[in-house]
């Protein structure tokens, strides 16, 4: 994991923590900790300021746990050229 990744992970964790009031770990189900699809999108827009950033609903539908959310956000934060 390079420095940029570490930075991103730190940011992701802090935003996730702001949105979840209960205790959780990576295996916690989003529904269990009170995160619904809209709050996930809110988390994404707090992390990413680029309004052009696309969200693929198929990918988002596969996100069920906090760990998967972290992974999905990491994908969104990755430099654009890697996505295309």
């Amino acid at each position, binding site marked *: 994991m390079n420095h940029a990744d570490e930075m991103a992970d730190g940011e992701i964790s802090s935003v996730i923590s702001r949105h979840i009031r209960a205790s959780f770990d990576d295996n916690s189900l989003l529904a269990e900790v009170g995160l619904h*699809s809209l709050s996930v999108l809110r988390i994404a827009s707090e992390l990413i300021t680029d309004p052009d*950033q696309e969200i693929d609903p*198929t990918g988002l539908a596969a996100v069920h746990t906090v760990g998967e959310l972290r992974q999905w956000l990491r994908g969104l934060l990755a430099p654009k050229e890697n996505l295309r």
Partner: protein
Amino acid sequence: MTVASQAATATLPLTAAQKGLLVVHRTVPVPHLYNVLAELELDPAFAPADLATALTDVLAVQPALRLAIREGADPHAVLGDAPSDAPLHHITTTATEFDRRRTELLAELGGTAFDLTRSPLLRTALLRTADGTRSTLLLVVHHLVFDGFSLRQFVRDLTAAVKGVLDVETVRTARERALRRELDAQLQSAGDDETERVAKALADRLRATAATVLNPRPNRPVTTGFTGTRREIRLTSRQSAGLDRLCATLGVSPFVLFSAAYAAVLARHSSNTAVVFGSPVMARRTLGSFDLCGFFVNTLPLIVDVPWDAPFDVFVKETVQAEAGRARAAAAVSFDRIVRHVDPDRTTNRNPVFSCMLALQDAAEAEAGSVVRRVREHGNGTAKFDLWLGVTPGPEGWSLELESDRELLPEPLVDALAASLRTVLDRTVAQPGQTVADLFVDTSPEDSHAHDGFRRRLPQPDLYSAVRAAAKARPGQVAVEEDDCRLTYAELDRLATAGAVTLAARGVARGTVVGLTTTTLVDTTVTVLAVLACGAVFLPLDLGLPADRLMYMTGKADCRLVVGDVPVGGVDLLTPAELTAGPQGMASDEPAAAKASDGVYIMFTSGSTGRPKGVLMNSGPLMNLTEWQLDALDMDEHTRFLQYAPLGFDVSFQEILPTLIAGGTLVSREPADRRDLPAVVERVRAHRVTHVYLPVAALPAFVRAALDAGDELPHLSYVCVSGEQLLIDDRVRRFFADRPHLCLVNLYGPTETHAVTTHRLSIDNRPWPSHVPIGRPISDVAAHVVDTTGHLAPRGVPGELYLAGACPALGYVNDPARTTERFLPDPYADDARARMYRTGDQVMRDESGVLLFLGRDDDQVKIRGYRVELGELESAAASHPDVRLAVGVVHGEGHERRLALFFRPEDGRSPDPDGIRRHVAAALPSYMVPARVFPVDAVPTTRNGKVDRAALAAQAQRALTDDARSASAATTTTDDPLVAALQQMWANLLGLAEVPVDRSLLEYGAHSLTVMAAGARIEEEHGVQIPILDFFRDPTIQAQAAWITTLREDA
């Protein structure tokens, strides 16, 4: 304020979802169907002028609200200039008038269509009280530019504008860019291969799933006017918290939990195990789009299998969660793309893929300190779906709203749906581990016991003593009337008592079974009464049945004595003359009264295992039926009831005994043949008959015959019918409309219970439906409708009919196994000994509680009113040594309904289908003989391994159609042009390619109704009338040609 816009008149593409919506908008008859109506309750202290300014700012920063639509070859949107003043209408009213004005304004805004070519597609009205205590902003926007999520953004922008923190210029530029970017992303994703693959997969699953139809009544309207009504189901904060806890425990979202509850409710109310409903899925793809108003949703179907026996929590987690995930993952699939792949029936103006909808609404909660205090969405008196469930979270808990189509779902049925939904949600929280079926409860105990209110109590304890009482009251009155014989009550009583003495001398006692092959009404009536006087049981034996079958019946019923002119098998015979020749002085003792449990008659009906079943009917149900009938059919000493039914049909009981008990006159049908309806009508007229009881199949012919005869039938009061589903056409309607003194009574009841429900059609309840209900139970009869969940069904929900109370027979004679299978303890009764009969008939109660017959859930069918177990036909065919497997099917509708038999030969054998048909005909009554017999190499099966009768029925129907098609080219086997013309006519009538000229037409599917039709055509073409009986005497084409020739010569 004027905002200079760089975007003036810019062209924007429409998304697939928008185009699809545009198509629907153009095809529905309601131009305001897609008006989104909302209300923002405002802080009343807020100045109206400031609101107008804020609203103008919102229009500036929300490009979608400035769109106009251009239709045509290339539909697109045009982005308009930001207006200098928002379209805000100010209304001031008094505090007392406020709510009324609010309702009026909502109706006006919601009901007024937009001109899509003119932006903004939004109208607002600010309603305030003059005293400044209340203020509300009413808002209507066209759905093409606004989805549920848009409301949240609208409120946010409005709040920001009011607070003065909305940087209009900067935000406007950014939002217009965001809109373009979002549209690009949508168009790009809609066209990709993955979206196409997902759409195809969804369509495949949809095609394999039956449509979810609520209120699946016959003749349900195919098109509607889209008028709707909304109701709220408010959950308490405690209930809401319970649901939230359950979501957390199960690890599912509220959408998944509500989807599961909704799916279960839909499955119950549509009587399906797999349901389809739509749900809007957010299709926004760019992060910037979440600040935009706009129409960025696709409505996707959820296809949910509802396993009744699975624990609800497992169902939620395993089935529904997976399905919800599939729907979300398919967010890019537009509805029109699914429709293209499904290729559904488009003859309806309803949504072609799903008729029910679930929308988890976004909580557009007001921010603290905001000018907007509360946000609500409203219905606008329309319904896009048969049923729509909106679920919205709020500060006090979940709020549920049901919007329903007024035409398709009458109010009481929506009550029932709402009750089911509430029950499921309550019970889910209490016990999430119980089975899906057990989330429901019995819902219609009152309906089960509601009856039609008719009853005239008899003072006598049994049928026989009631007849005797009538005889004593009017000894000189004619009891039985034949053409050459009129029997008074005194004579009837004398003969019956003499007969009873003779029977007793022959060992007949309480419970002894006596067969009847009597041929005249007088003999039959006397014998029946003599048997009843002994407390014995009569067994009608129709001499037209195959000898083997008669032998089986007498053997099974332990019948050792037959009264009649013809012996049956080895059973002792007593002629009617011998019966009444006994010593007459010994009958002065009144016989002991029959108990309710004493048997009265045995009637055999078709049995699925290949042998007929003998129903042993007892006194209790028959006394109850008689008491109902005396009142319901206004029976008294003036009653003249035509005895039409064969004695082997339970209907004959209703003709004979209640008439005698009423002191009326029983009029013999003879010499008119039962199938010769013109002769029957003539007899009804000539003998001033007041009551007739016909099989449903004979009603059209009866009506036609009366019309042809120009007969008003002034003495007739009641026309009763039963036997199968009564369908009424315009001719029948007109016939009764022109004779308002006639009441048409539709009766329903299996042999195992006798007639138990009735529906009356009279001048008071027009218009008459074409599919006539079977009505309401008679007094003391309970009709339980048990639905797919195993509970008493609410109104509008199909289920199996169980008949209880004073109607189930004792059982099948000498057949305890089958008796136990169909006659069950009645769990809904207070009395532990109460029994109910499981009919196997699918029925439902309509919104007023009236029962509608829907069909059978097994292989029992009705052919021209006769009950036929396909199993019995199959057993008869399979007894042929060359037949390995036989499958009977019924195909065609109404009077065109026919039996067909498919058989798979034994290996290496290839028997002639006609030979198989003859083999069957030798063993079964003629109505059970299939019209066509087809050999097959293999019998098709359904996905779950059952014989696919539907496929075979379709095959039989195709064969008929093919035959009919090729008939035009068929050659005749005759040089006689008259014979050839008749042959052609019969081929058309029977739907066959060729009909032999020298064989019985009855063997080729002709029956009384086709014979009637043939008679009419012959009269039209040849100018002669062939008496219907002559047809039946020699039902061949050659014979008809000979008659026509003779009649012409005579003329």
